[in-house]
């Protein structure tokens, strides 16, 4: 068992996370927040199906995955079970219509800890066609995180 699991053993949840495409995975979820790094932006790009095609260094560091593990994976591997699926349904509806989406998101790290972000996702339009999406995450305020936590509990 990894060292952090031993330390935080009372807070460990074994959770099965179901995704919209019918797949699922078993994940360890820890009640441990990793602070958002000062001054950084987490940047990723996906294809139109949500498969990651680009990850910057801040994304690699915060997610806990290697770049090789991220590229080719679906972005939903970051999805925390505390996030209501309706939030992501709204995201996809917005970006598939060609619009920009903003929201506060609790992300799940590979090690089971979590981090909050203010996320913006935009469609990448080339010659009039959506070829993928760019997602940029930045440091959220604690008041917005508290508001979002309260809201998401009512939606889960």
């Amino acid at each position: 068992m990894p060292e952090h699991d031993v330390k935080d053993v009372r807070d460990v949840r074994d959770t099965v996370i179901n995704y919209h495409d019918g797949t699922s995975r078993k994940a360890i979820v820890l009640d441990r927040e990793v602070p958002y790094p000062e001054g950084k932006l987490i940047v990723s790009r996906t294809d139109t199906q949500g498969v990651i095609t680009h990850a910057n260094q801040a994304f690699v560091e915060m997610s806990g995955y290697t770049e090789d593990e991220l590229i080719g994976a679906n972005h939903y591997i970051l999805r925390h079970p505390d996030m209501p699926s309706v939030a992501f349904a709204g995201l996809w509806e917005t970006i598939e219509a060609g619009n920009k989406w903003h929201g506060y998101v609790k992300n799940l790290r590979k090690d089971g800890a979590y981090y909050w972000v203010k996320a913006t996702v935009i469609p990448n339009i080339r010659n009039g066609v959506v070829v993928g999406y760019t997602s940029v995450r930045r440091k959220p305020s604690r008041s917005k995180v508290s508001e979002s936590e309260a809201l998401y509990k009512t939606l889960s």
Partner: protein
Amino acid sequence: MTLNLTVSPDFAPDHISGWFIFNTWLQRQLGTGVHLELYDCFDTQRKDIKSGKFDLVYANPFDASMLVRELGFKALVRPISKPDETIIATHKDAAIQSVEDLKPGATLVTTDDPDVNRIGMIMLEPADLDASNTETLAVDSYVIVAKNVLNQDADVGFFLKDAYDELSDLIKNQMKILVSSEISVVHHTLLLSPKLQKYASTIQQRLIKMMDDEKGRSVLESMNLLGWEAMTEEETEFMIDLIDTLIDE
């Protein structure tokens, strides 16, 4: 034919002569006239760019977005290892230790540099601050931003990191940095107008090779640049998409 060149007004005053030396170098390389026009105001420059006055623009990332998406310019090159980063600094004796210590009503001193101001405001978001609950004092240069911070006429100042680094130690020693961005992928670009695209390859190649000879290197040094590297269309689009995500609408 004379090419009309302009440069984003956010470089340090020490490098004005460097851009004129570059202008002469470029004329010799291309065998054609190049006319350089410099501005001290972003808005005035933007109006002239939109009116079609310029063929070649060394643009900050936010203006690059407008040049590519609205005016059909194409990015040729970017400066090597010179990302645009932003610093928020305060007086060294201020009680503020982090951005989160700032309260509504905080006073900011800034230039009219659009990318620094946008990224600066993003870095204030963790304190729940935005344009509606802060007061902004806009000044003409980063030296004046620093002067206002030292006089404690504002709680914090926004700086382009390059400009901050070039302030004297005497000034920097009287300030403390609250946050410095580490975005890495947002940078200036040199863009060519759509009507001159037939020259794109020649200009791009000359600029990329500029660091290969002593004369070119000395011109680059006078502009505080290491060299140029090619920008592909997709790299430009990627940067513009990223900038789009930073603009709240």
